[in-house]
């Protein structure tokens, strides 16, 4: 589904990422964990095409998308859920969802009912402007918005950020349901222990701008193995 | 401008010689590389706008000037020499006018100059012309009052135009006048003349509004006129923006007749605007393309033969045309292109066969005695003429302008001489 080979990225003159190799198979839920400031967001933006890579290749669904822009990647089936509260704050919930229609304009587009079925709160708040939602609701909206276009791959940047712990558990469950019921592949970056342990089937650990470890489901169950890459 | 400031400025200019100019003693006017410049043969300068704000009025002036020169040259030239024309486009830009005027006077050494549509342009270049004592023809109809030794005003003055049309309107429609005029020198002096003429004919100005140039909204003006309900409107509006008044007058179905000194004969509004915007417009003019005389028919034919795409042959174009011929006659009579001799010849009194009729130059004031007519536009914008009079430039006589005896460089304004204003 998604392959990153030997990817290097810098921000201005500052090198951020180097020698990144990641493979995601269809239907998988892949986590990328790391502490603050190790380059997680940079990595996810490079996956989405919002940052250009200096070197290396990115293939998606069999096509080389290294030099394709974000808009094209989105229409090919990448659904992006940005960090924090990056919904369009001035648009209503419904308008935000309609933005999702541009993603992966396939015939089997998800109906709004289905999204509302997943996230009933969004139907309740349909005509409210997104900026007035709580952090957790905004996160649900961002996920719902991506799902409207029925993407092949969901790309999430720290879904737990700015969200209360109890809601984080709900979001984790919702994402698992999405993966099971819609067969959507998921890749996310995270530093929240709960999300990493409960959502990821397989997980890469990132530190100082490069992949330092890869953890299978067995090691993910070990709290010590995971906290090594997350804790303070 | 008052005479005092003029004389003071000359006094200052006198100080130059003792000043810095001495340092520049080694500098020649022409320079090493430049030679004396100018052409060998006779040349006139024609600075008329073909682009910018006044292109609408200036283009025909330029075209008619070229026609006159063409005719002179076809006829063997002036004093047997082919006449050249220096005619760059000043683009309705007064600074460019100043530059081009200096260029015409100093580099090209023109024998006579025709330049400028608006009074603003004339006033911008007149100091240069005065400094060089250049023979200059200003051909636009204007507010009047310029009494200047080397300047010859060929257009009808406000006094001549309004003097024809205002009394006619008072007679025809009644004594209550509402004045609307462009808010600058021309409009304000014209407004003074309307008041003066109203006073002379026992009429009354019931309302007066001066409107900034370029203004395009006249809703409030029209409401104000409707509030006063005058017998007729005296309109001295100027330019394209102001033409909107006529359009809006028709929209608002304001059917008060209008008298004007500025409409139709210059900017051919009766051709450009859809009827009946100018219905019942009466304008005091010395010339319009529609004038039905044989002499004019020949002139119009010649003009459109030369310039088939021309928009309109306006009053100012005719003035340019006849004054170039008049200048050529004066040169022939003087036997030289020397400007002083030509001025002396012009001041001797000269008559010329203009398309508007035979007209005379008034030696004392350097203005023309014009055939003034009332042109009226009907509901279809057809123009008819009536009430032709031969009117002298009387205002300058009254203020004592006598250029052959007292060569001055002034512009007189009526409010300095009449208490009624």
């Amino acid at each position, binding site marked *: 589904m998604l392959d990153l080979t030997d990817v290097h990225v810098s921000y201005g*003159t500052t090198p951020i990422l180097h020698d990144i190799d990641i493979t995601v198979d269809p239907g998988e839920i892949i986590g990328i964990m790391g502490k*603050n400031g190790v380059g997680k967001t940079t990595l996810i933006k490079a996956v989405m095409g919002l940052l250009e890579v200096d070197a290396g290749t990115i293939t998606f669904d069999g096509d080389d998308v290294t030099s394709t822009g974000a808009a094209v990647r989105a229409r090919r089936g990448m659904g992006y859920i940005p960090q924090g509260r990056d919904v369009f704050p001035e648009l209503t919930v419904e308008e935000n969802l309609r933005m999702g229609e541009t993603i992966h304009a396939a015939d089997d587009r998800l109906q709004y009912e289905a999204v509302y079925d997943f996230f009933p709160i969004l139907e309740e708040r349909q005509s409210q402007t997104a900026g007035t939602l709580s952090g957790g609701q905004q996160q649900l909206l961002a996920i719902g918005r991506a799902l409207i276009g029925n993407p092949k791959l969901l790309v999430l940047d720290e879904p737990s*950020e700015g969200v209360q712990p109890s809601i984080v558990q709900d979001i984790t469950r919702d994402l698992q349901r999405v993966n099971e019921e819609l067969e959507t592949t998921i890749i996310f970056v995270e530093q929240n222990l709960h999300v990493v342990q409960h959502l990821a089937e397989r997980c890469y650990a990132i530190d100082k701008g490069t992949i330092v470890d890869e953890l299978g489901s067995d090691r993910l169950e070990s709290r010590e193995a995971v906290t090594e890459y997350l804790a303070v | 401008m008052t005479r005092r400031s003029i004389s003071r400025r000359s006094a200052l200019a006198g100080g130059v010689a003792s000043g810095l100019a001495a340092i520049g003693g080694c500098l020649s006017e022409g320079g090493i590389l430049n030679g004396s410049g100018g052409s060998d043969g006779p040349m006139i300068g024609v600075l008329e706008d073909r682009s910018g704000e006044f292109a609408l009025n200036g283009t025909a002036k330029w075209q008619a000037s070229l026609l006159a020169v063409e005719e002179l040259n076809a006829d063997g030239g002036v004093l047997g020499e082919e006449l050249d024309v220096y005619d760059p486009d000043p683009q309705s830009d007064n600074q460019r006018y100043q530059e081009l005027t200096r260029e015409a006077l100093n580099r090209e050494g023109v024998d006579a100059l025709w330049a400028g549509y608006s009074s603003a342009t004339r006033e911008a270049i007149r100091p240069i012309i005065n400094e060089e004592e250049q023979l200059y023809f200003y051909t636009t109809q204007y507010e009047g009052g310029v009494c200047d030794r080397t300047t010859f005003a060929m257009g009808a003055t406000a006094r001549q135009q309004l003097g024809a049309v205002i009394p006619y309107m008072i007679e025809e429609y009644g004594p209550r006048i509402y004045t609307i005029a462009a808010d600058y020198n021309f409009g304000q002096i014209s407004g003074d003349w309307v008041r003066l003429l109203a006073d002379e004919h026992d009429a009354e100005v019931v309302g007066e509004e001066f409107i900034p140039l370029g203004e395009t909204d006249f809703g409030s003006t029209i409401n104000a006129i409707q509030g006063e309900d005058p017998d007729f409107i005296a309109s001295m509006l100027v330019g394209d923006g102001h033409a909107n008044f006529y359009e809006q007058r028709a929209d608002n179905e304001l059917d008060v007749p209008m008298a004007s000194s500025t409409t139709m004969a210059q900017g051919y509004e009766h051709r450009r605007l859809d009827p009946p915007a100018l219905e019942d417009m009466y304008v005091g003019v010395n010339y319009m393309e529609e004038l039905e005389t044989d002499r004019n028919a020949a002139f119009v034919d010649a003009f459109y033969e030369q310039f088939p795409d021309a928009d309109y042959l306006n009053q100012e174009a005719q003035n340019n045309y006849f004054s170039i011929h008049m200048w050529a006659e004066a040169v022939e009579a003087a036997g030289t292109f020397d400007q002083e001799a030509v001025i002396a010849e012009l001041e001797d009194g000269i008559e010329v066969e203009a398309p508007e009729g035979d007209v005379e130059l008034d030696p004392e004031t350097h203005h023309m005695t014009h055939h003034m007519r009332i042109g009226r536009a009907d509901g279809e914008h057809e123009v008819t003429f009536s009430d032709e009079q031969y009117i002298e430039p009387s205002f300058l006589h009254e203020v004592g302008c006598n250029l052959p005896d007292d060569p001055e460089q002034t512009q007189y304004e009526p409010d300095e001489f009449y208490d009624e204003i």
Partner: protein
Amino acid sequence: MAASDPTVKTTRAVDETGERSSRILQTRDLHKEFGGLTATDTVDFAVEEGELRCLIGPNGAGKSTVLNLITGQLEPTAGSIYYDGIDITSLPSHERVDRGISMKFQVPTLYEDLTARQNLRIPLQRIVDAAEFETRTRELLAQFDLLAEIDETPATLSHGQQQRLEIAMAMALEPTLMLLDEPVAGLSVEETAEVAELLRTIRAQEGVAFIVIEHDIDFVETIADRVTVLDQGSIFTEGTIEEVKTDPAVRRIYLGEET
């Protein structure tokens, strides 16, 4: 070393109660909202003279907001800031700088067209005479190991050199409180160690107080006297690095586990 304006630094630190105190900076109930979202909530925070304080916390905890409130780039919705005993809450940034607060931004923002020498001149010319430019420039560059790069423009400097030049520029103003926003972000291990060494040296020599925002806990460990942990816009806990590291609550806020 002569300060620019002797009057500003002669006052001994006095806190808002009028008592003499060794606190150089004190905030009271600092509160900042952005269009309805609370960025910081009742932050009470004090820094002692010459102390090196690190500010840590997860993304979005409000660390940069606190820094910007101290420098005056942001205006608080409520609360006040005392510096050296004076209420500076409504002072414009440049006047706070005059009182001895200096700041190094996260992303290097050197003046692109100027050489290292000329970059340094921008802060230097505010406090020394033209005659001293060259000596002071060389001193500073030597201190930050950049003397060889004196005529280089930022584009030709390495990332680490750029970070050091920025710190040198902030230090040129001879501050009493220095704010650093992620000084080692994007630096290699060796470069990080160099910066840590540099900060320790400056502190020892000049007695400057520091507030450092940093994610790199190893780096924090090597430099910090005390650590303040921010979470959800409030101070979560404060203490030595050892105390904070072993505090299970701190681990929880970082890992997102429920308390």
